[in-house]
């Protein structure tokens, strides 16, 4: 039993229960050990790893990030240790984390996604997979899947088949005309959860050198700048797809404080991820959890689930 006045913050992503709705975003929180000196990771609702690919990837040439007004561009290029090293060195560290862990998976081909997903399938402590079909920074980032409902459905079906009872999260790109088409395709093909949004394709130019600032020329925009657009897309997908289908959403894009997180929850997100803001202040993750709790107490809500999608 919860003590008096302590609202129940727990939520479910499919069959996985989170102690609270606050997750890390993929690619901004490393493999968790990088964060532990700055934030109490045991407080998290869950942890989502950096994207893992079949082979190790050095990533794009520098400059890889660049600050913009209330935002940043990144073109990391899915730099990661690759599946094998991940299993060998990062999985044991992640096992020590007493919160649900979700591994974000990226690939060039369906076969690659399936290979990574199958290897991780059933591995402790992996409680689910998040398919990154929306990285704007590498041809292999899955963006082709993320923009074409037919391809996306094919991919999701293939991974679903390889991992019949894993929690399957599909992370959508905002760079499309109608995100609900992609959302529906993913759900129909077997996704348990949708997360949105990934970054917006953007660019910055150095007017002195007349070259793009980023080594990769273009990058993905994240941070507070994009919050209004991300929030609208979550609202749209909730109304058109998630609510009717009973599919939980993970909302993200520019969240820095509990106020932002609550906007996403009111719009229909069951959980939220925090990316760029963690780069600035890891402890914001805990502040967001505390702020949600304070809000629920202020409005005498017994459970956070009461307010999910409660936008009038």
């Amino acid at each position: 039993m919860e003590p008096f006045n302590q609202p129940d913050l727990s939520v479910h992503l499919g069959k996985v229960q989170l102690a609270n709705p606050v997750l890390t975003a993929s690619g901004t929180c490393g493999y968790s050990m990088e964060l532990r000196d700055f934030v109490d990771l045991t407080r998290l609702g869950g942890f989502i790893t950096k994207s893992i690919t079949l082979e190790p990837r050095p990533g794009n040439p520098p400059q890889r990030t660049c600050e913009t007004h209330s935002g940043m561009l990144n073109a990391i290029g899915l730099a990661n240790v690759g599946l094998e090293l991940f299993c060998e060195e990062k999985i044991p560290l992640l096992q020590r984390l007493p919160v649900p862990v979700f591994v974000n998976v990226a690939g060039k081909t369906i076969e690659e996604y399936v290979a990574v997903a199958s290897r991780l399938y059933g591995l402790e402590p992996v409680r689910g997979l998040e398919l990154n079909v929306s990285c704007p920074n590498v041809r292999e980032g899955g963006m082709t899947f993320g923009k074409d409902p037919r391809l996306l459905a094919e991919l999701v079906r293939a991974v679903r088949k390889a991992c019949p009872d894993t929690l399957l999260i599909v992370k959508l790109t905002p760079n499309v005309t109608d995100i609900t088409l992609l959302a529906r395709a993913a759900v129909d093909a077997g996704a348990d959860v949708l997360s949105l949004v990934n970054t917006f394709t953007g660019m910055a130019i150095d007017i002195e050198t007349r070259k793009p600032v980023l080594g990769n020329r273009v990058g993905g925009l994240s941070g507070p700048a994009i919050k209004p657009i991300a929030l609208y897309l979550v609202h749209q997908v909730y109304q058109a797809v998630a609510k009717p289908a009973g599919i939980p959403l993970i909302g993200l894009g520019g969240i820095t404080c509990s106020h932002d997180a609550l906007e996403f929850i009111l719009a229909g997100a069951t959980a939220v991820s925090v990316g760029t803001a963690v780069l600035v202040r890891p402890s914001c993750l805990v502040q967001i959890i505390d702020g949600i709790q304070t809000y629920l107490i202020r409005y005498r809500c017994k459970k956070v689930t009461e307010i999910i999608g409660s936008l009038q």
Partner: protein
Amino acid sequence: MGNSIGQTPKMPRRGEFTARVADQIHLGDGNNSLLLALAGQPADCLAQAKAGQFIQVACRDLNDFRQTDPLLRRPFSIAGISKNYQQLRPHSDAKPAGFEGLFLEIIYRVLGPGTAWLSRQKAGDSINLLGPLGNGFSLPGDPNEKVILIGGGVGLPPLYFLADQLSQAGFTNLLGFAGARTKSHFETAANLAKLPSDPLIPAAVLEPFARSKTDAILATEDRSIGFPGSIVQALEMFLQKRSDWNQARIYTCGPKGMLKAVADLARRHNLAGQVCMENYMSCGIGLCQSCVVAVKTAAAEPDGTAGKYKLVCSNGPVFDMEKIIWD
């Protein structure tokens, strides 16, 4: 005062802190020295910081969630740390009232919105920081070794701190090489009266080096003071004249072009040394993979940098000179 979140009970290695501005003084050439005060036990990990380590400073009020531009923290090398105010401010008579604990100095140049904000902070204002970050310089094993500290512009501050630490560790053969664009850079820090007529004769001219008994040679690119030209040229000529320094260990920090020139010189003279790199950083703590630098290594690394890239913020900022691929 200091607070760090989610720490295990034992002394944390590093953390998030709220420091207070003890004072801020204007040096020459758009440079400021900011002295931060940290009280309480959590600051202990900062007391252990090594020269070459840096802090990530929030150049806005992070608690005002309605204002997020400039978004990212700014990295600054630690220029000095002491519980003794006078050590970092030898020319001030008394410690400003109300500040106890640890004093941490950064020296920075006003360039853009972050440093402009910093320059507006006044005694008593709060500043949020993460630190100490990265890996510092490793000192030579033998305190009798000769050590050359060569830096340019805002690359000098970590070397001041290194001189402090070398001196505390018993090193006595220390020599500083300080380069700048123009003499106003040294305005308040240099004791120009002591400047020898031959610019290649070391002397106790530069206060932050002199405080740890380190003589220095100055160079300015506009030839306004000291050796006329780049500080690397000055070192080159110095080594030609002074063969007794031909085995010196070299530590350097500064703009990339300078570091490359120092590494080049070190290779030609067969000198070992370390370089403290700067790079564009978004997090400073190994999360974002922004700050990569190419290093001579073939295999994938367990730290997330596969193949040729290392993270300046976590694998560095200090690297062995010969490991860096200068492009």
